[in-house]
């Protein structure tokens, strides 16, 4: 029973914090709320007997990526978004964009509903790699990642590398021009 209570508390916290991320006018608070949401997610991973994933979530997302977000927000010293000014000029407020966003949102809802319904009979997904003990083991995780999913893993790395190279190219265009 307490486990269920903790689960609902953590999920509620994660959803609430995520909603606050978009609800905030101040980007600094958005970043903080996103970190809180990551923390709640890490708690959910611990409940799923996956301490390694939980710790990785905190190290990578909360510990590294969000520090960079914070760095950028501070460096730009982004002011609070002023509602009246944004209404007229912001491209995200155009009717076509709003319609596309609405379509995507309803697609997401349908998808979520389908996933929840089809997940009822699930339970074999975890067992595919052995019992709960081996799933949480870092050794097994590493083996699966570097044997079965090695292509996806390497493809992701190349994707990140491409993004990095692109950022460098974009940043360099001004000034040198070569």
């Amino acid at each position: 029973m307490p486990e269920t209570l903790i689960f609902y508390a953590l999920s509620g916290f994660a959803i609430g914090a995520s909603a606050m991320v978009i609800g905030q006018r101040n980007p600094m608070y958005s970043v903080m709320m996103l970190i809180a949401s990551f923390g709640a997610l890490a708690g959910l991973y611990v409940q799923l007997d996956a301490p390694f994933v939980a710790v990785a979530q905190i190290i990578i997302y909360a510990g590294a990526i969000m520090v960079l977000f914070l760095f950028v927000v501070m460096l730009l010293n982004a002011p609070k978004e002023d509602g009246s000014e944004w209404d007229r000029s912001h491209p995200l407020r155009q009717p076509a964009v709003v319609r596309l966003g609405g379509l995507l949102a309803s697609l997401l809802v349908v998808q979520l509903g389908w996933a929840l319904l089809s997940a009822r009979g699930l339970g074999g997904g975890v067992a595919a790699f052995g019992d709960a003990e081996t799933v949480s083991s870092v050794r097994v995780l590493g083996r699966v990642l570097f044997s079965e999913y090695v292509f996806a893993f390497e493809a992701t790395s190349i994707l990140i590398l491409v993004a990095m190279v692109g950022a460098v190219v974009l940043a360099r265009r001004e000034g040198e021009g070569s």
Partner: protein
Amino acid sequence: MDLLLIAQLGVIGLTFFMLINASAILVLAERKIMGFMQQRYGPYLVGPHGMLQPFADIIKLLMKEELRPKGADKWLFTLAPMLSITAAFAAFATVPWGAETTLFGLLDEPVKLGVSDVNVGILVVFAITSMGVYGIVLAGWASNSKYSLFGGLRASAQMISYELSYATSLAAVILLAGSLSLREVVDGQSGVWLGFIPSWYIFLQPVGFIIYMIAGVAETNRAPFDFPEAEQELVAGYNTEYSSVRFALFPQAEYINMTTMAAVATDLYLGGWHGPFLPPEYGWIWFLLKVGAILFTYIWVRWTVPRYRYDQLMRFGWKWLFPASVINLIVTAALVLYFNA
């Protein structure tokens, strides 16, 4: 209640108590050692040889008025010191500091000296230490002061840069030990080689140990890498606008982080509580001695090495320390593969 549970709670309470005291002792030790190095006495008036100076400092700080600048962000300004100190205490949660003991036969089952034993202990320490940067960055931003903002900016860039080398040097030890649990890493270092060399990982990982120590100094914002609070340039950096207890929490968090860093170094490289002469029941004495030696080195370095320039810090971190730690990791991995096959 169960006797074992009471003993375990006692150990947890003792760990907390020791961490609080570690910060008080370090304040005194820092000032005494600094005085000794500068050929003066240091604090001398409060208590015998100034031994009660930390109490005087704490009472003075508690009595001060708490100020908050008018333009400061109310919530984040209050939250920042709390984040710092919480992360500092929580990071010690998976660091073991002694072998299993029955408290001289008092208990039926042995109790482990340490708050908790998780099978990914090293990563937990690393994850929570990396949370500590938020306290400093938010303090710098929320103060609404140019000096503080620069301190916070420097802290985020510096800690991101040195965390990489720090984690990579840890990974080499994890490869050697074949486990992510700190207790298992320590137990892998019991015994001796050739009859007289204690089998500590420092002898297998001398480069890794040096990288760990340098990155550790940068992670805890100590001189020669104390850029977030470089007093000649930034007044007091990120904590310029803080006063009273809120201010006191920052140096306290720094000292506790130093202690955690030294304790993890002891567990990973110096054999933890393993050592000659003492029975395993008294291993925690070895642990305390080793941690003390590392902390002394930290203070020693602070008062002998001048501060770098900021660009030198970044260049050193990315162009020297990080490649060195990666090479160290690759060589270690190759050797482990070779000798295990």
